[in-house]
């Protein structure tokens, strides 16, 4: 599973980086940087919470291992 930030929707509330600091950090302007986009099993619950708590709905999770064409995309 991968965590994705839509930079055009993100307004830098920063909740996501507080919820999963293992995956996301904030840059000097307060916007989340994806340090590690693969979400390990142990963080799936927290990652889902980050998705739900984003006021701008800018965080999403993508299944990595199905055949959906979207998963061919690499996300930084």
């Amino acid at each position, binding site marked *: 599973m991968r965590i*994705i930030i*839509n*930079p*055009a*929707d*993100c*307004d*830098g509330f920063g909740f996501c980086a507080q919820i999963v600091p293992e995956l996301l950090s904030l*840059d*000097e*302007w*307060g*916007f989340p*940087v994806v340090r590690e986009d693969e979400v390990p099993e142990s963080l799936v619950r927290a990652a889902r919470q980050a998705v739900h708590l984003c006021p701008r709905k800018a965080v999403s999770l*993508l299944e990595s291992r199905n055949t959906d*064409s*979207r998963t*061919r*995309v690499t*996300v*930084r």
Partner: protein
Amino acid sequence: MSTMEALSQTERLIERGVEPGGPTLEAHLRRNGGLPLPSIDGGRLLAEIERAGLTGRGGAGFPTFKKLHLAQSGVRTTLVVNVMEGEPASAKDRFLVTKSPHLVVDGAEILASALGAKKIVICVPANSAALPQLLVRVLAERAAQRSPTTTIEVKRLSGRYVSGEESALVSSVAGHVGVPKFRLDKSVPLTIGRDTALVHNVETLANIALIARYGADWFRSVGSPEAPGTRLITVSGSVERPGVVEIATGTPISAILELAGPTAPIQAVLVGGYGGTWLPGQHAGVAFAPTELAAFGASMGVGVLVALGAGSCGIRETARIASFMASESSGQCGPCLFGLPAIAEDLQALADARIDRRILDRLVHRLGMVDGRGACRHPDGVVRLVRSALVVFATDIDSHVRGVACAGSARTSVLMGRLSIADRR
């Protein structure tokens, strides 16, 4: 701006000796032969475009046939013709439309016919008066021969730097705000209402018009085997005759600059546009072709070459470009909205010799922070440009961080305002 009328057999796209108001349909057909419409076989044309090895001329250089295959799977298609040309150092699209409007419209109509697209929208920047006038005249002249089931219109849209970005343009045409869209998978087609939108640059379309007439072998007979054909190049900077030339790919950059008459020894060349790469002057002999340019981290981009003569300050010029690019952010994405001005300020301070190593390190860190973090490639282009400046102008940077600005940092910019070509002939 003058036209450099110095080239010979590689001139395929540009029609010479054109009367004011553009060439008539009759003159165009006399030069290029009749249109292979309406008998065009879509499958055959696509195969021919693939065999020709045509790549998009709007900057990304994506293989044209791949893009066409994506659209084919769609139900209905709207063909969007991109003449936005937001890149300030580029004038080739306006130049091409002004000199060879019929060739461009040929390409659009041939492609629409091949794909069964019923709608063609030609997008021009709202600040140009000449282009829409010319196009409306040209379309009227061609009305009689056009398939009655295809509609074609000219749309004037706000012309900012990112307006011509594919997803931003499609969004504008669809009546939404013209800003780039965050797309995870670029193979998912863009849409306008229920139609699949297919965006093509005018130089790509003009090449399609020629491939449809003369075939892939003819197309490949000029240029490097890896990137066949010709390229329209806008040459500016420290040159006597800035303008647009058509060259065979693989031509050495120094030879292209020579056509424009360099006014000073060249210390560096900006290759590809404002989001491009600085090439050191001593390597200006490199061929204008993908693999050769890749060795310097550069690509052909939109066919822009800006010569930086000895005596100018590359850091100052880069700072100017970065400031412009910062002001052209669509403002959607934080890293671009805040990062680009921060980078531009650091560069400004560096050009003024007001910073030390520590701030230079911060600049490098910021480049890494902004890279790849926008919905579109706008910030990435700035990062590429600035990184190349840090390498190519390393000696100057050394003295700037020691507090000694070079004499060139006070010089007038070699970068011009928007090159005007279509409006001043």
